[in-house]
């Protein structure tokens, strides 16, 4: 499903060059639940952003679902973001002026889904994350855990095969964090490929496999 070969990502700030990723090779199969771990600054977010087509690698190859992504022009990236990828951010990134329901509808707005269908699908997605009662609330009226569930509903509403989550429990207490992880586990069991960043070894055990980063490199580690 996901193939990265010798992917590097450098940040140039003035004279400095930060090597956030150094020739990383990653492969994730369809239906896998992979936990991405490593110390702060090791390049986890950078890697997940590259996988999510939110960032371009400086060098290397990235193949998603058989398609060579690194060389694609912007319009194709837009299509891939719409159809293949759902992204959950550590800081939620909900639009504060929109209700939970409208936030979930946002990807469908850009995909040109008809209005009536938007509403139905957004309700079902909120239902799936157990947030139907909060549909008309704005983000500032929701708890952290509820916001993250709205974000997950938004990531799922276009029904993408791949779900990427960058520390989705990072800002939550252990109870709501546990609920989110359980939710992701359920989604994975229903066939979705999931890559998730976490610092929590306990949570990491939920995944099939752990990939560890250090200084932008994959640490040789446990097999499947």
């Amino acid at each position, binding site marked *: 499903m996901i193939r990265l070969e010798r992917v590097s990502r450098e940040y140039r700030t003035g004279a400095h060059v930060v090597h956030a990723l150094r020739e990383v090779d990653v492969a994730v199969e369809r239906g896998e639940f992979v936990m991405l771990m490593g110390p702060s600054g090791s390049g986890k977010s950078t890697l997940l*952003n590259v996988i*999510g087509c*939110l*960032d*371009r690698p400086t060098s290397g190859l990235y193949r998603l679902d058989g398609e060579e992504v690194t060389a694609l022009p*912007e*319009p194709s990236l*837009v299509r891939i*973001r*719409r159809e293949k990828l759902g*992204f959950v*951010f550590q800081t939620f*990134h909900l*639009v*504060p*002026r*929109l209700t939970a329901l409208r936030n979930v509808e*946002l*990807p469908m*707005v*850009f*995909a*040109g889904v*008809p*209005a009536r269908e938007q509403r139905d699908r957004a309700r079902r997605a909120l239902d799936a994350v157990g947030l139907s009662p909060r549909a008309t609330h704005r983000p500032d009226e929701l708890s952290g855990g509820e916001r993250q569930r709205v974000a997950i509903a*938004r990531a799922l509403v*276009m029904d993408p095969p791949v779900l990427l989550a960058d520390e989705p429990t990072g800002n939550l207490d252990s109870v709501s964090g546990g609920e989110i992880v359980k939710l992701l586990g359920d989604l994975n069991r229903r066939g979705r490929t999931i890559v998730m960043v976490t610092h929590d070894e306990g949570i990491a055990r939920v995944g099939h496999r752990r990939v560890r980063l250090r200084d932008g490199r994959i640490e040789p580690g446990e097999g499947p």
Partner: protein
Amino acid sequence: MNPRDLFGLAGGALAAHRVRTRLTVAAVAIGVAAVLLLTSLGTSARDYVVRQFAGIGANLIGIVPGRVETTGGPPLAAGTERPLTLDDAEALVRRIPAVTLMAPLALAVTSVEAGGLSRAVTVVGSTPEFVPIRALAMAAGSNLPAMDSHSTAQVCVLGARLRRELFGDRNPLGEAVRVAESRFRVIGLLAPKGMSLGVDLDEMVLVPVANVLRLTNRPGLFRIAVQCRSFEDVPALEADVRRVLADRHGEEDFTVLTQQAVMASLARIVGLLTAALAAIAAISLGVAGIGVMNVMLVAVAERTPEVGLMKAVGASRGQVLALFLTEAAALSLGGGVAGVVLGLAGAQAVEVFVPALRMASPVWAIEAALGVSLLVGLVFGALPAVRAARLMPVEALRGRR
């Protein structure tokens, strides 16, 4: 993205950032209003000057019989030339569309009697147009009736002093006066005016022109006065008059008088005022544009992370642009309309305090102010959005610019 979503999202963003929306609308409105107010001040000042000059007859030309070599002054000799007739005068009106007013003029000095009192005065034979052409005003009663210029209706209008001398405090309207053996009914009284072109307009009696021609027993007019809309049309009018009369007479046996010195300085002054007006308009448009630009740049640039989020959930560059253009268009249009209302109201207020200035906001100024604010608003409302939309989503989310 369907229109409902486009307008819904754009409108929601405007409503959510109420302070910013108001500031932007205010910036556009103030810019547009300033442009309107300044240009209408400039235009009305120019019009004021032009009107003052029009009062002294800058948009008037006179035609007198006889040919003189040097321009200006009356013809030197009344030789064998053909007279200027009433038919000549009417031909000018008929054949030259630029003529707004025309008055044939015949003069006679004779005695005027009423109630046993008699005065020797100038009898002015003309048409009702004589009154507006000479910038006279009626004090009471009515002007000569509109009529065929060959009419010899026995009615007259009295100058202010003559009326007092003949009638004292009595009301002369409807009374009869005797002008060289004929009886004329007084139908109107002129407001005081004074001397003009050698005729004491306060001590005259105005009668239908054909009466004077019959009195003097000559077909020739003393003068034909022709007025056009503006002094700028005078040269064209002069050429037309020459053509029409020469055509009728077979040769140029008449003289056209214009106020050339007045016109030359008027043209200079008006040219200067117009240039100043253009500068005022350009500067105020520029200032307004920069104001709008700043507010827009700041308002949109701080939303770079929002653009990043939109792109992350699948928005294309075009969709981002459409959203921000819609917002910018709403802001600039709203501000523009508010500005026009504000500017027009301001112009009215100026007129209340300075009635001499007839404030009229020129249509081109409204168009230019609206156009520039809309253009600047759209460009600078969309530009930062375009830049943000070019970034990869993470970069935009981070708020980097």
